[in-house]
């Protein structure tokens, strides 16, 4: 329907993305099974030896399909890692625009490379002052009390004392 907006008219419509059914390989299945046991697991590429955490299904470095079904390719990963980069979220990014957070509600997000892996993952960092977060700092995972086999089983990361 045409509507008037100031001097000019416009018509509206939408992109029904909710009608799309994307398909993906279930590379998180074994990973979240591990999380339920409070274990971080990664998958090793048989082509180049890269270790992926979070897992994935194709290694783009050497163009190898990772063997999700092969238990031997899944390996236990340390809960500790190094901060590669971080941000402190001062504002919430909402579909309508930006909303400022209260100081106590600010969140520190970090890209962490877990020891022995070739990838990074995005995590939340707690238990430190904003000014103390540094690239290169050592951090470790904190689990939820009752893991249920979901990505949220790792609650957040904290600095290693």
């Amino acid at each position, binding site marked *: 329907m045409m509507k008037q907006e100031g001097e000019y008219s416009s018509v509206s*419509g939408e992109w029904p993305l909710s009608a*799309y*059914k*994307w*398909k993906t390989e279930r590379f998180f299945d074994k990973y979240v099974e591990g999380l339920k046991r409070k274990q971080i697991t990664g998958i090793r590429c048989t082509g180049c030896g890269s270790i992926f955490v979070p897992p994935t299904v*194709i290694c783009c470095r050497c*163009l190898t399909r990772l063997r999700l079904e092969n238990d031997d390719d899944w390996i236990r990963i340390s809960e500790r890692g190094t901060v590669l980069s971080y941000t402190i979220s001062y504002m919430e990014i909402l579909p309508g625009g930006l909303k400022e957070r209260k100081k106590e509600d600010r969140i520190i997000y970090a890209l962490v490379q877990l020891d022995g892996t070739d990838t990074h993952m995005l995590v939340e960092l707690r238990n430190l002052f904003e000014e103390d977060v540094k690239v290169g700092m050592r951090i470790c995972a904190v689990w939820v009390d009752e893991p249920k086999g979901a990505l949220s089983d790792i609650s957040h990361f904290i600095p290693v004392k």
Partner: protein
Amino acid sequence: MARKVAIVACSQLIYEKKRNSSREMMVYEVINELLKNAGISKADIDSFISAQNDYLEGRTISNMRTVGPSGAYLKDESKVEMDGAFAALYAYLRILSGTHDVVAVYGESMASCYPPYLPMTWTLDPSFDRQNGFVNEISAAALQACSYMYKYGITEKQLAKVSVKNLENATKNPYALRKINNIDIETVLKSRLLYSPIRALNAYPLTDGACAILMASEDKAMEMTDKPVWIEGVGTCHDSYYMENRILADCDCLQLAAKSAYKMAGIKDPLKEIDVIELHENFSHEELIFYESLGLCSKGKGGEFIDTGATLINGILPVNPSGGALSANPVCATGLIRIAEVVMQIKHEAGEHQITNKKEVNIGLAHGQNGICAQQNIVFILKGARKCEM
């Protein structure tokens, strides 16, 4: 042109209604198949061009996540958001420039992922046709079919013949999706009526699939294969959005595209000189119109032309021996499949659907299209054995 460009390998996956993998894995598989067929590794490829459409993928920047699976990691990569045959054109331009020697092209889409037929309605003027809701790719094709049939006295039976021919050919194509054994005109005329005169078997099937081809400069091609297929000519044309500026019953836009491709390849009498044609016909009437636009017969004679049996797999000029888009139509891959199929015919590697009644299949035509009622067309002339003289 300073250089010559050949197609050295191609790959297809079995077309499916609902493929059991992610599209990334589908890309990975079709590229792996290509590397295997060409006997090379991804290190040998300079550049990757994909044919993808973000509205079919449900993702903006749809190539962002296929860089890795396609082998384009740390390579020169780009995306043509059109039918795959246009991506092949881009690869061809890159090689001719002398800046790239070996280029892989792939096209893909999954109809089981996107809401069928809707993405094409989003190409329409949002303030008129899209709001009105009367135009979609099938209703527009029906208006074209009706106009064509009325103007030239084409019958529904002649439309059905296209489906029968192509779907019969498809039964011998291991990749084809829609295969109907013992199909006859009655089967087509009894299939579900969608928008008159278009019935289910006059229209393409919704398909998941991907296709890839490997193109190379002359020296590289000669290293890689003893059966290069040369690109002799290419022509493309974009027509008006508005129906009155196109004469629906005559696809002038394809005629112009073919004219420039013929000129480049030195083809004077396509009917005599071309050995095989693979058309991107989304609907069966399109194939008849395309016969005329390509100059295989005069205007209005598409119906008579199919009646002669000339375009059957054992006819004088087989069209769509693979089964064409009526047998499988993964949008964005379809034009590439046409190229791949012509290449297979010229290399005598088509297997059960190989044309056998000719001494040799040496010159082929592959066609791709984009948009409602074939608004954009592209024609490739491919040639085997002897090197092209230019």
